[in-house]
C-alpha cells in the first residue's frame, strides 16, 4: 500500500517535471498562431484560430530561413569533414606510431582543449579579415574546425590506443600500405569514436552564437542560430507571436533530427561519459 502510494507520488512528480520540460515548447507552438494583440490579451489562452498562419507568412517574406538553414548545413558539413579528415591521421600517429616529440604534441593537443573561444576570437577575426575572408562562411568553417580539433583528436587517440595492434600488424603483413591500413582497418574500427566526436562538434556548432555574430555581419551569410540571436532578438522587441513562429522553425530541425536519430545520438553521447 505504502509502496504503491510512493510510486504514484513519484510518477506524479516525474510527470510534472516532464510537463515543465515540454510546456515552453508547446507555448511556442501555440503562440505562433496567435495575432499580436490576441497574444497581449491573454498570453496563456489557446489560439482563437489554430490555422492562423499569418506569422509564418510574415516570417517567410522577411527572412530567408531556407538559406539560413542551408548556410548552417554547409558550414557544419564542411567543418565536420575537415575536422575528421585532419584529426584521424594525427590521432593514429599519436596512438600507434612512435616518434620523438609525441608526448609534447599530445600535451599541446590536450592543453588546447581548454582554450576558450573568446581567447582566440579577436586574432582569428583579424586573421580571416586579412586573408580576405572577412564576413564569409570560410572564416566560420575555419574557426569551428580549429576549435573542435583538440577534443576530436583526444577522443580518437584514446580510442585508437585501445585498438589491438595485432589487427594493424596483420594488415601490414598482408602488404597493406598506410592508406590501405587506414581505410580498411582504422577507419571502420573508429566509427563509434567518429560518431561521438561528430555529435559533440555538431552540438557545439549548432549552439554557437559568438562566432557567427562576430564573424558574419550580413544576414545572407548568417547561420540559423546566429540569425535567431540577432534577427530573432530584434523581432522579440516588436512582435511576440512572430518571434514564436521563428523560434519554432529554428527548433524544428534539431527536434526532428533528434527524434529520428535518438538511438545513435544517445549512444554517441553516453560513450564520452560512461566507461
Amino acid at each position, binding site marked *: 500500500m505504502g509502496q504503491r502510494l*510512493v510510486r504514484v507520488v513519484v510518477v506524479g512528480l516525474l510527470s510534472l517535471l516532464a510537463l515543465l520540460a515540454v510546456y515552453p515548447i508547446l507555448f511556442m507552438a501555440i503562440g505562433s498562431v496567435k495575432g499580436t494583440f490576441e497574444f497581449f490579451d491573454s498570453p496563456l489562452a489557446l489560439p482563437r484560430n489554430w490555422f492562423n498562419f499569418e506569422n509564418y507568412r510574415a516570417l517567410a517574406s522577411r527572412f530567408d530561413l531556407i538559406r539560413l538553414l542551408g548556410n548552417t548545413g554547409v558550414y557544419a558539413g564542411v567543418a565536420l569533414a575537415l575536422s575528421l579528415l585532419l584529426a584521424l591521421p594525427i590521432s593514429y600517429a599519436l596512438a600507434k606510431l612512435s616518434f620523438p616529440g609525441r608526448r609534447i604534441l599530445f600535451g599541446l593537443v590536450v592543453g588546447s582543449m581548454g582554450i576558450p573561444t573568446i581567447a582566440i576570437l579577436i586574432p582569428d577575426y583579424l586573421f580571416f579579415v586579412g586573408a580576405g575572408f572577412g564576413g564569409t562562411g570560410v572564416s566560420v568553417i575555419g574557426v569551428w574546425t580549429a576549435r573542435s580539433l583538440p577534443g576530436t583528436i583526444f577522443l580518437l587517440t584514446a580510442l585508437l590506443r585501445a585498438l589491438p595492434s595485432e589487427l594493424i600488424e596483420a594488415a601490414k603483413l598482408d602488404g597493406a600500405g598506410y592508406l590501405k591500413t587506414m581505410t580498411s582497418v582504422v577507419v571502420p574500427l573508429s566509427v563509434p569514436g567518429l560518431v561521438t566526436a561528430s555529435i559533440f562538434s555538431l552540438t557545439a556548432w549548432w549552439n554557437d552564437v559568438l562566432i557567427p555574430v562576430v564573424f558574419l555581419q550580413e544576414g545572407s551569410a548568417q547561420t540559423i542560430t546566429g540569425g535567431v540571436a540577432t534577427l530573432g532578438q530584434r523581432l522579440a522587441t516588436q512582435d511576440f507571436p512572430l518571434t514564436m513562429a521563428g523560434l519554432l522553425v529554428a527548433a524544428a530541425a534539431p527536434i526532428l533530427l533528434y527524434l529520428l536519430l535518438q538511438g545513435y545520438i544517445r549512444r554517441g553521447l553516453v560513450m564520452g561519459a560512461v566507461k
Partner: protein
Amino acid sequence: MTTPLLSRSGAPAVKSGSRRRRLSRREAVLAYATAVPAVVVMAVLLWVPVVSTVAHSFTKWDGITSTWTGLGNYASAFAGGQLLQLFQTNLVFLASIPGIFLICIITSVVLWERVPGWRFFRSVYYLPTVLSSAVVGILAKVLFSPQGAVNALLGQVGLSGLETDWFGHTGTAWAVLVGAFYWQTLGQGVLIFLAGLSAIPSEVVEASQIDGAGWWRRLFQVILPLLTPTVGYFLLTNVIFVLVDLFALVYVTTGGGPGGSTTPIDFLVYQKAFQDGDLGSASALAVLLLVITLVFSSLQILILRRVGGD
C-alpha cells in the same frame, strides 16, 4: 659513426637493429607527415592567436595599431577588488551546478528503480537539450517578460503577489537565466546518469529497495560512488560550460542587464572589444579566463584520462 661499417660487415643482429632503426625513422617521418596538417591548422587558428591575445593584453589596441601599456589592463581589471565582480555571473552559475546535479541524479535513480516507462521520460526530458541556447534564451525572454506567460499564470492562480519584473532585478534575472540553464541540462544529466546506472550490476541497485532515510543513504553511499566517472564528467563539462559558454544564453535573454549585472566574462570581453573598441582590455580579460579554464580543464583531463584508459 661506426654503424655503417658494422652493418656493412653483415652481422645479422646488427643489421636487423639498423633496419628497425630505419623503420622507426620511416615511422617517425610518416607520423610527422600525417600530423602536420592538423598541427598547422591548430597553430594558425589556436596557438598563434592565444599568443597574440596574451601579447596584446599588455597594450592599448584598436585592431590596427597597438601601444605598449604594460600591466595597465590587468591593473584596471584587479582595481578595487572588482575581479570577483567581473566573474560574478559565472560564479552564480557555478554555485547553481550542485542543484541541477541533485535534480538529475535523483530523477535518474527514481526513474531507474520505479518507473517502467523510463525510456519515455528520458526522451521527453531530453527535448529541451536539443534546442540551441539562442532559442531557449529568447523563449525565456518572452515567457518572463512583464506581460508574459509566467506573470499571467501567477495572476490566474491567485499568486499575483509574486508577479514581478523578472529582468528588472538582478536576482530574478539570474533566476531566469539559471532556470533556462537547468531546463537545458536536465536531459543531458538524466541521459548519462541512466546510462551509468545501467552499467552498474543490477543486484547492487536492487539489493536494497528501501524507502525513506535508507534510500537517501544508499543513494549517497552506494550508488554515487559507483557512478564516479559519470558524475565527474557531468560536473566538469558543466563547470567548463558556465565558465566559457554563457555568451549565447545571456546575449539573447538579458543582454547583460539590468544595469550590466548579469554579464558573464565572455560577454564582457565581447562588449569591451566590439562595443567599446578597447581590444587591449578585452584581451586582458580573455587571458584571465584562459588561465582559469586551463586549471579546470586539466582537472577534466585527469578524469577523462581514466575514462580513455590511458
